[in-house]
């Protein structure tokens, strides 16, 4: 087995196991720590899929920003760990629905002819590296969505401040 494939399978299994632990563990802080492990493994998968810029953004935004936000709110809310039931009343119904949807997606992906493997080295980053290529695309062809995303972030920031500021 080639090293890249071995690394991919290791990263994928660690990511899936820690994702299971995110929704399985009773302590929310443990969930957050497993979540950061999942994000880092997914960032490694991005590197293997030749998306180095997205991997860097993943580490910075998810593992850096979003996780700190999660931990901050967990400390702020400060619920006693393990109080009451873990899952909702109709969890069996939800589990059946989830398993059925997963089986449907597996069936579609198994019958959809996705058998071709990725190319050896694509020419995505041939001209000066992945960061330059993505930046070029972002600031020329996708300039308007980029600006709209920044406005969206501004609106989200204002909304979060307004929501968390006062007692209603």
């Amino acid at each position, binding site marked *: 087995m*080639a090293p890249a494939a071995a690394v991919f399978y290791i990263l994928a299994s660690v990511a899936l196991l820690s994702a299971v632990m995110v929704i399985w563990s009773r302590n929310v802080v443990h969930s957050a720590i497993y979540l950061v492990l999942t994000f880092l493994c997914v960032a490694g998968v991005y590197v293997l899929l030749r998306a180095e810029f997205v991997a860097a953004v993943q580490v910075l935004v998810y593992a850096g920003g979003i996780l700190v*936000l999660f931990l901050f709110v967990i400390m702020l809310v400060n619920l006693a760990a393990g109080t009451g039931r873990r899952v909702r009343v109709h969890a069996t119904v939800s*589990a059946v629905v989830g398993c059925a949807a997963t089986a449907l997606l597996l069936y579609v992906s198994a019958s959809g002819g996705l058998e071709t493997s990725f190319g050896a080295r694509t020419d995505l980053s041939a001209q000066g590296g992945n960061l330059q290529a993505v930046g070029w695309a972002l600031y020329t062809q996708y300039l308007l969505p980029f600006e709209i995303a920044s406005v969206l*972030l501004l609106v989200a920031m204002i*909304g979060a401040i307004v929501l968390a500021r006062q007692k209603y």
Partner: protein
Amino acid sequence: MPVPAAHALIFSLLLFAIGMVGVLTRRNAIVILMSIELMMNAANINFIAFGLRAHDLVGQVFAVFTIAVAAGEVAVGLAVVLALFRNRDTIFVDEVHIMKG
């Protein structure tokens, strides 16, 4: 690279399924938000895998946009959780049934 495209897609599919089961079954609103993040990560893996397969950068550009939207979503969601905790003293979603009629 000898990783088959189907394996990356199956990985993202399993990640999405785990996130979906978390959203559907857990009571804690913070864990539900974490599960939504897992599902967004799965969508990102799909974007990048299909972009690599199609020899196109659009997948990576969309993944960057998805990460931006996820950041905004988690900020607003956690603010809602905070406001919920201040007003109702709980973050368990099945104890919040004001709008249930």
